[in-house]
């Protein structure tokens, strides 16, 4: 018999790698191709395995854990259907640049290509929606591949990495040694921005008459909030945060003009359109943010763009001063320059008079009060629920959302003062992320308040996770804005399809209170505006602190999200309300 002193199985090597990476939670679902790995999980207690009820939720929860903490999220799925169920989760993370390592089982090496039971070409299927992926062909490669996977996922512009491991390899034996570092000649992300470009940008910023800072998800992922706040306050510039960037700059601060884009505030969009120097920080001029590029070009402005990904620069919009680098490093350098080499320059710059006139203009736009809505005594307005949620949680909660009208209302009315508190699928727009996102956030911060703002369409896309929440005692509060419509679809059908509400009505809904109760949770039905605040207070009270509470708010089915920049229109072509 072969000498196996110091040797462990491939499955055990996988587990040891995860332990070396200080993984706290592994989100997964077992199956044939990963049975060896699950056996190794059974024998260890360094990290916790979270058993979900559908692989999609495993990846979403791992993704949320990463969004909330900044650490790499990790998921484990079996081959074939387990792997394909994970795809939506992987693509969601990819579009929002979330660092993940997703391990998928594969059929045994000799069976690959034989159309074996539960076989799918995972490396092929995931190629367009991962930062990178690997198929392990030799047990000796497991440790270095895992090290590379974590390194690639978390550095540069982050993203998901898939590691596909055939079953036979997890059963073989080899010695384990985890590499201390990894070097790849083909992968060397740039961290520090070009000093000359940074100075050039800073000079332009100091000369600006109508400056505007536009920061996105990159500012959150790059953990540069402190530097961003310092720079923005020091310069006195207005700032907007994209849907992905909310919390990057405190929303309750007076220099914050709200979110830009399709459902951004009037003042944010008008400032974006009319500024003379636009400073883009970790944002990518997405179509939902700047609308029609032709219209955007109608106004002359100088654009400075700080981003870690060179391919994000001058992709949709031509940029004048590109700075490729880590946002935190670049902003730190800018702040240091203002305190040092540029100090003399800042004595009468930026031009106080011009800035004052610019702010006066912005205040005029702001006075339109574009987020005002008509309150009702009869029917619950969804905006009102979010406002009260913000009050009751003192703006401190982790808020996850699904996709649609409720997502926009949460983004508009919950004022995020801290980064990594707002978890939603911005890029891919994946319905069904809300509940698994709340699971990931709650596991990361067991004592925090976690609210899942959702719709009756979205929540049903991963409703099975109510069971996982029970098993792991997750005291999430679901805020269901139940308007009996796929609200955003209905809104577009009302505006652009002559009120033909094709398949957007949600019929045959379950009794959500009973449904929650059947899983052992607390269910609440809230039908009157006057009950909203007391119900929320009760849900977040110490009495229910340990409980999962499912709050079914019956909201106004006809309410629409405003302002709105119709698809293909320019930023200043907003619809402000029903009356217009």
């Amino acid at each position, binding site marked *: 018999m072969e000498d196996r002193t110091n040797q462990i199985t491939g499955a055990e090597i996988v587990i040891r790698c995860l332990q070396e990476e200080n993984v706290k939670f592994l989100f997964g679902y077992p199956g044939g191709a990963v049975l060896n790995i699950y056996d190794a999980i059974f024998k260890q207690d360094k990290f916790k395995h979270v058993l979900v009820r559908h692989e999609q939720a495993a990846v979403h929860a791992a993704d949320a854990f990463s969004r909330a903490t900044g650490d790499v999220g990790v998921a484990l799925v079996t081959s074939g259907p387990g792997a394909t169920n994970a795809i939506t989760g992987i693509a969601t993370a990819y579009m929002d640049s979330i660092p993940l390592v997703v391990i998928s089982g594969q059929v045994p090496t000799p069976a690959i290509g034989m159309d074996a039971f539960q076989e799918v070409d995972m490396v092929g299927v995931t190629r367009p929606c991962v930062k990178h992926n690997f198929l392990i062909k030799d047990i000796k490669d497991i440790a270095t591949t895992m090290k590379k996977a974590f390194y690639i996922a978390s550095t540069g512009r982050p993203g998901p990495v898939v590691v596909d491991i055939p079953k036979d390899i997890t059963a073989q034996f080899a010695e384990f040694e985890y590499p201390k570092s990894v070097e790849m000649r083909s*992968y060397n992300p740039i961290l520090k921005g070009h000093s000359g470009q940074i100075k050039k940008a800073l000079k332009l910023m100091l000369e600006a008459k109508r400056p505007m800072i536009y920061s996105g998800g990159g500012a959150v992922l790059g953990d540069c909030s402190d530097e961003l706040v310092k720079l923005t306050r020091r310069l006195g510039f207005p700032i907007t945060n994209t849907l992905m960037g909310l919390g990057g700059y405190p929303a309750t601060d007076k220099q914050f003009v709200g979110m830009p884009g399709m459902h951004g505030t009037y003042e944010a969009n008008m400032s974006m359109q009319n500024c003379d120097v636009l400073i883009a920080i970790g944002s990518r001029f997405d179509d939902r943010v700047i609308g029609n590029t032709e219209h955007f070009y109608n106004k002359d402005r100088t654009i400075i763009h700080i981003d870690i990904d060179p391919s994000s620069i001058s992709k949709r919009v031509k940029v004048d001063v590109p700075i490729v680098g880590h946002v935190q490093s670049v902003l730190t350098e800018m702040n240091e320059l203002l305190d040092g080499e540029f100090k003399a320059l800042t004595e009468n710059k930026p031009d106080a008079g011009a800035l004052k006139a610019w702010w006066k203009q912005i205040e005029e736009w702001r006075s339109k009060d574009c987020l005002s809505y008509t309150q009702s005594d009869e029917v619950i307005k969804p905006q009102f629920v979010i406002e009260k949620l913000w009050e009751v949680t003192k703006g401190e909660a982790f808020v996850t959302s699904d996709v649609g009208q409720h997502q926009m209302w949460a983004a508009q009315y919950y004022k995020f003062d801290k980064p990594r508190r707002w978890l939603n699928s911005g890029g891919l727009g994946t319905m069904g992320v809300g509940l698994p996102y709340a699971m990931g956030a709650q596991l990361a911060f067991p004592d925090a308040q976690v609210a899942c703002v959702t719709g009756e369409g979205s929540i049903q896309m991963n409703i099975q996770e109510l069971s996982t929440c029970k098993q792991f005692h997750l005291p999430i509060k679901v805020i269901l804005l139940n308007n009996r419509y796929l609200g955003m679809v209905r809104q577009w059908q009302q505006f652009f399809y002559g009120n033909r509400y094709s398949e957007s009505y949600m019929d045959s809904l379950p009794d959500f209170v009973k449904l929650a109760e059947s899983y052992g949770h607390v269910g609440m039905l809230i039908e009157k505006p006057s009950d909203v605040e007391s119900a929320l207070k009760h849900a977040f009270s110490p009495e229910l602190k340990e409980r999962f509470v499912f709050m079914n708010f019956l909201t106004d089915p006809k309410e629409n999200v405003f302002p709105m920049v119709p698809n293909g229109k320019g930023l200043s072509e907003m619809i402000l309300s029903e009356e217009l």
Partner: protein
Amino acid sequence: MKHIISLLMENEAGALSRVAGLFSARAYNIESLTVAPTEDATLSRMTIVTSGSEEVIEQIIKQLNKLVDVVKVLDLNDGRFIERELMLVKVKATGVFRDEMKRMCDIFRGRIIDVADGSYTIELTGSGSKLDAFLEALDNTAILETVRTGASGIGRGDRILKV
């Protein structure tokens, strides 16, 4: 405008599909693509012939650089370079065609590498446009089959793409 992009990438399974997939996913044109290992067997050299506006070409280069397996990318059109492509053409060589084909082959400095009763197979190297010109010069009805490798390119003088 037509661009020839050269790149070095890790010679690993799936590397080619990452490049091909990138071009199809982002709707970039791809005229030809050739790939083979270099003198260092861990590296593959790829030549891609593509076309697009300057902005599109800039994005293609950035996106290629972003692929984790890609070590270096060079737009050959940024400087002086040589382009070569190999073509094999099987032509009719009966009656009047038999002398005519030999003559055309000589004019274009090709070589007849296979002779059969009714056909010649001609080997021709040169830039893509030279090969096009040869095909145009032939009587279309005489062409039985063509095989082209797609362009390979290399920078002139000390323009060297190496790790």
